[in-house]
């Protein structure tokens, strides 16, 4: 039994390099007064400044420790997991009382969440519903007014020419974005903020900016005649404009997919006030891609442990839409298993065709999971130009970065690669070499 993870995968959970180093120090039975594991959990008592009780629920990799550290997982948790990589370190046994109590509490809490939602549904009185409808109507009007002003602003831009925006300060975009926030359309605001970085950033910026403005215009155009759209696409348009779905709304309206979900790769982006973690999964049977987004503000840990290079029987629920990509775990069933193969497209042409099909259903998607079988990494010009090439000679450029690890692990031969494609460059996220998964990049 034991966890079937590699040390690298465990270390990827560490919130920072200091925790990783300390965890490694504690990965020695010498520090542990007791150790044990069952089907559901591993646990141990670690002798630090006091005796700490450390436990990990295996299905979700949730770590609990009695130490006062605000790091998550703390060094004790990491130490315990690192120890468990070698099953011989951790004897199988009956969980002690403190572990049983915690597991029972977690199970009860999960159940309660379900019943609470049901109760809430039952309680919603008619007057509540009326109030909510009124609020919704008010918001709709606000958004419609905001969208109208945005359309005017965009038309002005194009009338006066995009050349003028290169010299505009950042406030030029920010002011319009703030207006969209006031109009309760945060999705539109986010798109405007992204556009602020385009002018002058590359040689092709006019074309890029025009494309983004155009896609925004398509969105406002679609919003104005939303009733004419397909129901699923209506969901997309509302979410893109800024109606965020509540967890239970996703649960009610989103599709549930039970599969063997393969965690193919992860990428963490630092943003103003926190970090965004983008994790790409692929269903082994359904071949559906899924994007799990997690946000962390002010250095808080990500809520759910998602380990690249693992596979798990689980049910995902997708945000409703015409070509759903974003999802979250609804229930994680089996144990985490190491990933040893990645099902993917045999040619770059086939991978691009899948992207095209997705765009045909939902034209605002920006990033796609791209799993390529048997591609060869090619490095040119001393490491400044990178591609992956399939057996037909078709090539995708890699994102501007250092890809030496990918090249090293490939050894000049074809490998299976998972990456994030943004219609310009591919960001490698994970690969299989000699039957073993290796995470690439993302380990910020």
């Amino acid at each position, binding site marked *: 039994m034991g966890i079937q993870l590699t040390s690298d995968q465990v270390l990827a959970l560490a919130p920072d390099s200091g925790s990783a180093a300390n965890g490694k120090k504690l990965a020695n039975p010498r520090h542990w007064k007791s150790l044990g594991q069952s089907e559901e959990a591993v646990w141990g008592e670690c002798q630090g400044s006091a005796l700490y009780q450390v436990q990990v629920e295996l299905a979700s990799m949730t770590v609990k420790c009695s130490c006062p550290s605000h790091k998550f997982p703390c060094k004790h948790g990491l130490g315990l997991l690192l120890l468990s990589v070698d099953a011989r370190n951790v004897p199988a046994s009956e969980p002690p009382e403190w572990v049983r109590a915690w597991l029972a509490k977690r199970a009860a809490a999960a159940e309660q969440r379900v019943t609470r939602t049901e109760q809430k549904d039952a309680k919603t009185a008619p007057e509540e519903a009326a109030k909510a409808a009124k609020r919704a109507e008010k918001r709709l009007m606000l958004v419609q007014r905001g969208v109208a002003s945005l359309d005017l602003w965009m038309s002005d831009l194009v009338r006066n020419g995009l050349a003028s925006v290169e010299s505009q300060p950042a406030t030029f975009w920010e002011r319009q974005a703030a207006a969209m926030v006031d109009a309760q359309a945060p999705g539109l605001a986010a798109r405007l903020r992204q556009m602020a970085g385009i002018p002058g950033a590359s040689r092709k910026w006019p074309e890029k900016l025009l494309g983004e403005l155009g896609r925004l*215009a398509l969105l406002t155009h679609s919003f104005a005649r939303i009733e004419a759209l397909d129901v699923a696409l209506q969901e997309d348009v509302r979410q893109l404009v800024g109606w965020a779905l509540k967890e239970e709304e996703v649960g009610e309206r989103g599709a549930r997919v039970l599969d063997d979900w393969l965690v193919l790769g992860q990428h963490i982006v630092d943003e103003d006030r926190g970090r965004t973690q983008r994790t790409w999964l692929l269903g082994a049977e359904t071949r559906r891609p899924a994007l799990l987004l997690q946000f962390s503000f002010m250095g808080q840990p990500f809520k759910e442990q998602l380990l690249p290079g693992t596979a798990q029987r689980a049910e995902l629920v997708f945000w409703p839409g015409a070509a759903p990509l974003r999802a979250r775990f609804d229930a994680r069933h089996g144990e985490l298993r190491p990933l040893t193969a990645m099902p993917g497209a045999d040619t770059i042409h086939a991978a691009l065709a899948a992207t095209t099909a997705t765009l045909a259903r939902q034209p605002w998607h920006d990033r796609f999971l791209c799993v390529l079988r048997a591609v060869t990494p090619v490095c040119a010009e001393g490491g400044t130009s990178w591609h992956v*090439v399939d057996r037909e000679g078709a090539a995708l450029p890699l994102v501007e970065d250092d890809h030496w690890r990918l090249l090293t692990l490939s*050894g000049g031969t074809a490998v299976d690669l998972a990456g994030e494609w943004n219609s310009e460059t591919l960001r490698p996220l994970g690969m299989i070499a000699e039957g073993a998964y290796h995470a690439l990049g993302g380990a910020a």
Partner: protein
Amino acid sequence: MDTFVATALVGTAQAGMREATTGTPVDALAAALAAGDAERRLLLQAGARAVYQRAGYVAERVESLPTPAPQELLPACSPAAALLLVPLLAGMYDDLLPEALERLRQAGLRLPYDLLPAALGLRTNALRALVAPLLGERGRWLAGFNLAWSWVGQTLGDMTDDVPADAETIWNEGSAGQRVAVLRRLRSVDVAKAREWVAAVWKSEKAETRAEMLMACEIGLGAEDELLLEAALDDRAAGVRAAAPTLLARLPGSAFAGRVRERADAMLVWKDGKLDARPPKALDPAALRDGIVEQASQAKGQRAYWMMQTLALVPPSHWEERFSQSAEALIAAAADSDWSLALLEGWSRAALVFTDARWITALWSFWRQWGGKGKRGDAGARDELLQALLPLVPHELAEHFALHLLTDPSAQSEAEAYEVLDALPRPWSAAFGAAYLQGLRLFLASLDAKSTDAVPWDHTLTAAARALPLDCFAAALEPFSLPEDNKNWYIANFGRQLETFADTLRIRQRLFEEIPV
């Protein structure tokens, strides 16, 4: 830039009324739009065009693929060993890296692929030489892709005795470094040909290259090199002139060795069991040509300095034969002389130039107990020579001295214990390691709240953590007991040194376990 983007860039107001087209099927879609303002139409067209381009992305073509890396000949080290090496390669505990790399080499292992970019990024020549044989086929293959990693080929080339097949081409067309490297290799297999090479190009080379080529004569040094070396004494470049004397001195039959011996013989006379030193009163041009430097350094008189330099170029055994006295007797006599420092320093340097083990040991034993003549600079010169001789002294003697420094309270003025421990060959012998640990525990037991320093044990733990042999690990990792007094800064500081000591030792222990030799 196409006209569609250009229209947007200048603005529809400037572009006039003519309709912008994208030249794609998007135009047909735009035609279906209700008539509206030109700006809105352009934006929607731009949006559709952007989606069209994304959806219709055409892959590039790359025709030339890299040659695959050859099959590995060595197995990789274990994943656990790799995990230990990651922080070492990243610069943490980096003075443990040489030992770990050396162990991998002894075990016949290579680095796993994951570590190769970090290993190729190592910066010092010493570490590069250690890591180069561990890169495996994959590492050598990888190094070919990045100019910053071109050191790999050179380092590996330097390490083999084989002369590469294209040696002649490298000699004629390579960089200065490559040329000297290939010359050194050739000297070890075909010294006659190497001499021909140098003779043919000597006059046209730059001064730095001439000096390097001269230095290469140390490999396979022989009488046939004399001509070139002797001529180098008249070279116009100081760097070339400076390289010649010690090499010429090591050619026993050379005219140079004869001249220097003659000069030295005139300086030393053995009379009635005493050594009479007669340093020259002036420096003649011939001595100047032979590399004796005129400028006296501080604290040494000009005459003493000339004598010291001259003696440094004569094999010490010469004096045993000439005066029929043992090295010890000669050293004792020199110590009594008025010119003791110059004599003994000259002999010490000569013992190092000619690697005379007997003299090294005898001189080192002398310096150990020498208190100086009370002159400024005496102690400094003594410490410097002790450090220089130490690595060549028999291990047992050196360790015995170190122990004496640590445990004999009267020895503390002789040398800094931590410096001597640092210079000891690693690993220490098990006996010395055990004695060190025993002494350390006794010292700890002697500490109390009133202790005001940790001399001579202060800072010795750094050397000990790196040099203790495996046999001593268990004893070293037994917990240490320090007086429970957090207010005493010295005790607290030593406590921190002990923690680092134990941490470092544990890493070494894990390395030993994970890289079995």
